[in-house]
C-alpha cells in the first residue's frame, strides 16, 4: 500500500501544535486537581462526577476539549499513527516550561527523554501524513474531472 507524501500546510501544523500543547497541560491540571481530593473509591462513583466541578479539574477539562477539537480535525486529514507521533512533542513542552518558567531542576535522564522524543518527532513529521489508497486517489481524480 503506497503512502502519499502530502505536505501539510501551516494551518495544519498549527492544529498539530494545539493537539501537542493542550493535552499535556490539561492532564497536568487534572493531576493537580485530583491529588488535592480525598481518595475516591468505586463504591462511591458519584464522588468522581463531583470532582469534575473543582477548579483545576474544570480547567483541565477545558484544555482537553480544545485538544479534542483540534485532534478530530487532525484525524480527518492525517493517519492516527502519524498524529499521535507528531504530537508527542507536548511532553517536551511541559518539561521545557517546568525548567525555563518554573525554574525546576531537570535531571540528565529527563534531558535524554527530551532529546529522544524530539528526535522521534523530527523523524516522523517530515514523512507522509496519510496512507494513500489507490482506489481513493482514483475517486478523487474522477471527482476533479482529471480522470475518466
Amino acid at each position, binding site marked *: 500500500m503506497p503512502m502519499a507524501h502530502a505536505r501539510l500546510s501551516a494551518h495544519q501544523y498549527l492544529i498539530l501544535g494545539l493537539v501537542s500543547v493542550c493535552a499535556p497541560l490539561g*492532564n*497536568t491540571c487534572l493531576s493537580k486537581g485530583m491529588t488535592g481530593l480525598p481518595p475516591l473509591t468505586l463504591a462511591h462513583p458519584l464522588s468522581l462526577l463531583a470532582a469534575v466541578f473543582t477548579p483545576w479539574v474544570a480547567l483541565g477539562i477545558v484544555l482537553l476539549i480544545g485538544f479534542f477539537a483540534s485532534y478530530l480535525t487532525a*484525524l480527518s486529514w492525517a493517519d492516527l499513527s502519524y498524529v499521535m507521533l507528531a504530537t508527542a512533542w507536548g511532553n517536551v513542552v511541559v518539561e521545557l516550561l517546568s525548567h525555563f518558567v518554573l525554574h525546576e531542576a531537570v535531571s540528565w535522564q529527563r534531558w535524554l*527523554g527530551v532529546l529522544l522524543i524530539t528526535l522521534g518527532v523530527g523523524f516522523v513529521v517530515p514523512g507522509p501524513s496519510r496512507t494513500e489508497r489507490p482506489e481513493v486517489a482514483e475517486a478523487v481524480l474522477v471527482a476533479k474531472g482529471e480522470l475518466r
Partner: protein
Amino acid sequence: MTLPVFSASFWAATAMIAAVTLSSTAGEVLTAAAMKSIGDLDQIRARAGLTGAILAVLTCPMFFIGVFFMAVAFFALLFTLNHLSLGLAGPATASLTVVTNAIAAQIFLKEKVDRRRWTAAVLICVGVYFLAH
C-alpha cells in the same frame, strides 16, 4: 514511585494502567475510523461552514462509540491519578498508548506504519520513559 514487584499494589497499578491504555486505544481507533469516513473537516467547513462540519461529526454513529470509550479512558485516568502519582501513571499510559495505537492502527485502520513511524514510536516510547525520572 516504586512498587514492589508482584505485590497486590503492583497488580492494582498494572490493572489501572492497562484499563486506561486499552480503553484509550479503543476510543482513538474508533474516533479515527469515524473521522476517516467523514473526510477532511477543513474542506467540509469551507464548503458547509462550521455548523456543517459539526453536523458531519455528530451524525456519525461510530464517532459516539469512540467518544464512549474515550470517556471510559478519561474516568479510568481520573481514578488512576487518585491512586498513583502522575510521574508513574502519565508516562506509563502515554508510552504504552503509543505502541498499542500503532499496532491497532495497522490492524484495524489498515494504516501503513512503516519503518520511519516504528522508529519514531520506539524513540518516543523510550523518551517518555526517561521523562518519568
